[in-house]
């Protein structure tokens, strides 16, 4: 009689309990597979979001911008923006390059009319951005964040972010008075809200407004200038090399004093993503521990329950290592089957979700309106990590049986026989 087949039969002996063990391990495996996919998705989301909204694969700004951004940012624009964009697009490594114009603005959302003039009441600080909507189609496509009922802004119009709209109860068709001042003076305009965008980044959704790049340039009397140009490189392009090429190309085209930075050198973008993924890995580790304790527990229960049987086997002359092998086999069979089930279930769930995305914001927080941030995350199924989870789950759930089994092997047969 082979130990393996005894082990196998033991599994079917108490179907309920085996089912429980199996489902526990399978669920743990499933959860970990899912968790990994979510974390991978979150990482990707973070990276793409950052790239979309803030950094691109690389960002070009005036070299003086950083130093003077708090006192006179508008003095440090990229002149001849069109020429720069043309030069960039000529670079074969560049997929797309877009110019943006960001500026702080005071916005009056309510006003009274006295003597035929508007007297602003409630005002709020916002960050306004001018974008080239047609260039941005494949970059930061505001159209895809539009709340139904809105459209992209035309002349004299703007988009407002969901959080901002919610705070001041704004809807398309409402107007705002915008004031934006630089060192040299203050400019103003009445702008009509053409639509509301629910943006996936809290910072942006809270208080941003968007208008056409040309409108922003005109408003701030900065025709032909942009604050920054974001570049997306073609897939497979090494960012470091491409950035160097961009620098050369710009210099060749007569641009001086421009600062080209790859995304991971902008602010702490790289570090934050790095940090986040490290934290996720740690959490996955604790996850494993938690899952592992479930497995240990089950095995321990099984062993205590079968104490008398252990005694009999010992009396029949089974040695400690043989005992351990028996229980190990049992754990291994359950573990492998469970890990398999878990991985299959997990993958089966993730694959469709990785295409459709999951809006966790909506899923969990039912109090949300469509003006709120959409927490759409696209879980990413990674073959390597999934295989890893399968082997890990199997290994852990079988190896872990050593802990209680070793104790069982040490129990004197007399004791084992005496227990009920």
């Amino acid at each position, binding site marked *: 009689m082979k130990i393996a087949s005894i082990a196998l039969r033991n599994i079917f002996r108490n179907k309920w*309990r085996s089912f429980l063990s199996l489902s526990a391990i399978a669920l*743990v495996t499933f*959860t970990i597979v899912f968790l990994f996919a979510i974390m991978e998705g979150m990482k990707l989301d973070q990276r793409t979001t950052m790239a979309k909204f803030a950094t691109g694969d690389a960002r070009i700004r005036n070299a003086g911008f950083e*130093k003077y951004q708090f006192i006179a940012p508008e003095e440090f624009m990229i002149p001849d923006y069109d020429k720069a964009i043309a030069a960039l697009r000529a670079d074969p490594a560049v997929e797309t390059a877009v110019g943006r114009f960001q500026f702080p603005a005071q916005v009056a959302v309510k006003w009274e009319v006295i003597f035929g003039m508007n007297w602003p009441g409630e005002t709020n600080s916002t960050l306004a951005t001018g974008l080239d909507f047609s260039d941005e189609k494949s970059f930061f496509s505001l159209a895809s964040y539009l709340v139904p009922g809105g459209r992209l802004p035309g002349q004299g119009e703007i988009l407002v972010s969901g959080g901002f709209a919610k705070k001041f109860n704004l809807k398309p068709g409402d107007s705002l008075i915008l004031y934006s001042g630089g060192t040299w003076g203050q400019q103003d305009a009445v702008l009509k809200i053409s639509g509301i965008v629910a943006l996936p980044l809290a910072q942006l959704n809270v208080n941003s407004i968007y208008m056409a790049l040309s409108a922003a340039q005109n408003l701030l009397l900065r025709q032909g200038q942009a604050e920054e140009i974001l570049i997306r490189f073609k897939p497979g392009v090494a960012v470091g090399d491409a950035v160097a090429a961009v620098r050369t190309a710009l210099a060749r085209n007569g641009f001086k004093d421009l600062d080209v930075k790859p995304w991971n050198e902008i602010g702490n973008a790289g570090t934050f993503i*790095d940090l986040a993924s*490290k934290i996720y890995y740690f959490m996955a580790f*604790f996850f494993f521990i938690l899952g592992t304790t*479930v497995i240990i527990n089950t095995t321990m229960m099984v062993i205590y329950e079968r104490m008398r049987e252990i005694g009999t086997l010992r009396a029949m002359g089974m040695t400690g290592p043989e005992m351990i092998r028996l229980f190990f086999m049992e754990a291994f069979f359950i573990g492998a089957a469970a890990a398999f089930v878990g991985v299959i279930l997990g993958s089966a769930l993730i694959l469709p979700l990785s295409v459709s995305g999951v809006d966790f914001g909506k*899923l969990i927080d039912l109090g949300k309106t469509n003006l709120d*941030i959409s927490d759409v995350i696209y879980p990413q199924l990674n073959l390597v990590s999934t295989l890893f989870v399968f082997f890990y789950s199997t290994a852990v759930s079988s190896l872990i049986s050593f802990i209680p089994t070793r104790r069982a092997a040490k129990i004197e047969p007399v004791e084992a026989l005496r227990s009920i």
Partner: protein
Amino acid sequence: MGFIITLAFKNLFRYRRRTIITAIAIATGVSMYIFIDGWLQGAQAESVRNLVKFETGSARVVNTTYWEQKDFLLPKYDIPDPAPAEAALEKAGYTVAPRVTIFAEASKTGGAGEAFTLQIAGIDPARDGKIFDFANALTPKGAVYLTAGRSEIMLGSNAADRLGVVLDDSVRLTTRTRDGVWTSLETRVVAILSTPDPIVNNIMGFVPLDVLQNALQMGNGVTDIVIGFPEWLDPDKETAAINALLAPLPGSSDYVAKSFNDLAPEFGQIAQSKSGGTKIILFLIFIIAAIGISNTVLMAVYERVREIGMMRALGMKNGAVMWCFIVEAFGIGLVGALFGVILGVFAELYMVNIGIDLTPMLENMGNIGYRILGVSKSLWNPDTIVTAAIVSIIFSGIMAILPARRALKKEITECLRVK
């Protein structure tokens, strides 16, 4: 019922080993849940934490007019005698640190340096450190913290770069006194602050409170009384409590307490809009913990089908048998939850106060000067601790129902035959 409870508890002790195993499973689940929730909250609250520890404090008491004009930081609208309010707050267990916060033009003394507007805070070197964490952000080597009475300044790293100053350089601050009189102050740079808070790095400078009060002719007046309270407390509730606490004090109608949510409203909103991803992680953790708990409780009950048969054979009613098991499972849940909470709290104690330093594992650390960023810490989560404990206890009890009911459906003889 009393009998059932007695019996249930006797069983708990009789099957001590099983109780312990099951309780350990529950404890692991509970503690892990508490731990990960705290950590996730900590990771999520990292930006808020940085805000609180470097920029705003937990709350502040300010003059109402100062608050209305907060874009201008006018020392004219101060709290002339902060002592009674400070005493009242300290008595109530809050940490307090008085500050004077103003705008000033700063430039390097003696050079043709440029002038930049900075936000200058006069801080009490002894008390400020109890709320703020600048002591950990001092760079470069040789940097020291401010000393009261000395005309010294600690500058945000980017601000220092802009001004072109390094350690021991002199910085002239030009600003207006409480009464609007232009004045200037020569300070010596004793530290460059490299913090995770961009506002501090970019536009802030710190000088000793007494020096600034003197320069601004403010007497004992301060513009803010910064309050520190543990980060797991609800900032808005605490702020309401502080306002109530200050109400009976003379002149209190001029002051108002503002929580960090008010002090940095955008941050507050960001913090509130928790990302769904972390919620799903918690949900998954809960599932695993629940599996662990249910698994062991189920087994504990299955193991004793024979006992159920025996109890019924002795003439116990089904309901009573059921209750007996439920109470026992509650008991196990209770023990497990208790240990889980203790374990979780200990783990959090470490994670809240020390945290895990991920710095050595970070690849892109090159451009960051501060270590604090790499240290991942937890946030106290009393709500979760209580919820996790209660849910696990109730859950354990409920989990006993299923197998007990199955056992009760069986014929007594059948039960007795089970081994």
